[in-house]
């Protein structure tokens, strides 16, 4: 038996590998990336045979080490906001792990450092992002400058909506529905007050705020790599969110007297 390779406790290694997998999945990685990372970490530390099964909400890891022992761990994954910054850090970390084989305590430390919960405060960069996104796309789809201004104002208010209500929501579909109703009402109000001129353009700008782009993209990439189950789950979620957004804005329009004659 290879002494050098089995100096770590398999249970600890598996914990580390699952931590990596869970954090990556929660940050919005594809299934292939997650499974590949877990397999690589396990084989780096102990060889043997690794079986990983991952879907959107569950990772099952079963490992037969070179010493002939069998281990299985499962982990339930809770939904989490996509964060490509952290995903990039985690990707770099997994490269580092497979090259350097650091002890598990160090891996744990690094994952903790990356995933440390950010203090809940108002991020100026996020507000800038919201405003830029909404107002730029209001003009992109044919609005004038005043529509852009109105969309920007709505975006600031939507940021605060997100700030107060988005914590720990498990159901993104219902959340999107209510967020779009609020956004639609705000857009209509902004035009009624006289800031914006075309309610259509202002609304398109704020639709772009909540469009499920990452879900859709990941669904495509997953299906392409052969992970049909997760691809379908993600696609279904994305479509439901899109319908919820449309329904939300529709309800807001009807409240302000447009439509359904």
């Amino acid at each position, binding site marked *: 038996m290879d002494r050098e390779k089995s100096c770590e406790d398999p249970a600890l290694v598996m914990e580390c590998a699952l931590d990596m997998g869970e954090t990556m999945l929660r940050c*919005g990685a*594809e299934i*292939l*990336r997650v499974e*590949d990372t877990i*397999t*690589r970490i396990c*084989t780096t530390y102990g060889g043997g*045979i*690794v079986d990983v099964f991952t879907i959107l909400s569950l990772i099952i890891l079963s490992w037969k080490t070179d010493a002939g022992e069998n281990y299985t761990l499962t982990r339930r994954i809770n939904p989490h906001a*996509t*964060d*490509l*910054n*952290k*995903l*990039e850090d985690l*990707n*770099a970390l997994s490269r580092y792990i497979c090259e350097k084989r650091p002890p598990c305590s160090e891996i744990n430390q690094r994952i903790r450092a990356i995933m440390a919960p950010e203090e809940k405060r108002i991020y100026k*960069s*996020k507000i*800038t*992002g*919201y405003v*830029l*996104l*909404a*107002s*730029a*796309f209001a*003009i*992109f*789809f044919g609005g004038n400058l005043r529509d852009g201004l109105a969309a920007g104002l709505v975006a600031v208010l939507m940021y605060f909506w997100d700030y107060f209500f988005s914590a720990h929501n498990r159901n993104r579909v219902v959340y999107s529905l209510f967020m779009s109703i609020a956004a639609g009402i705000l857009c209509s109000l902004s035009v009624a007050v006289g800031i914006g001129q075309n309610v*259509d353009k202002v609304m*398109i700008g704020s*639709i*772009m*705020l909540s*469009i499920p*782009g*990452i879900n*859709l*993209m*990941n669904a*495509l*990439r997953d299906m*392409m*790599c052969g992970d049909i189950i997760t691809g379908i789950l993600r696609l279904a979620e994305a479509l439901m969110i*899109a319908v919820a*957004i*449309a*329904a939300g*804005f*529709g309800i807001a*329009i*009807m409240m302000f007297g*447009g*439509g*359904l*004659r």
Partner: protein
Amino acid sequence: MIGAFCEKYLVMIVTAAAGTAGYCLNVNIKRNKIIYGCVGGVLSTFLYCVFVEAGLSLLLQNLIPAAVVTFYAEVLARVVKAPATVFLIPSIIPLVPGGRLYATMRAIVDGEGADARVYAMETIVIALGIAVGIVVVSLVFYHISHKRIQFKVRFDK
């Protein structure tokens, strides 16, 4: 002719760059990589405008820019050493049919079934075009880069 093109589409391209930067901030991409996303967004918008002007079909108008941008993102991912998603998602954002989605919903709310059907079909065609563009190019890269992926070896050793 170039002057007319600029006059018509400059606003779109500039706002696409701004919007893409906003999206990058929104999903928390690293600050030094936002510029790549912006370039991708400008690229996709520029190509989209060119193909609209050239009179291509609705499908191709979105398929080709999506494919080109995917190529850009996958190459960049290998150069800069970051997941391709980081560059791909911001670059695609200007192509996303948010306007059609709104128009569909508006037509349904206004009770104009025929319009709603046309807009819904267009939304689906655009989404399909983007999807096919991404998948075709990614598949090529996937086959190049994942040759060494570790599958388990149990019976054939």
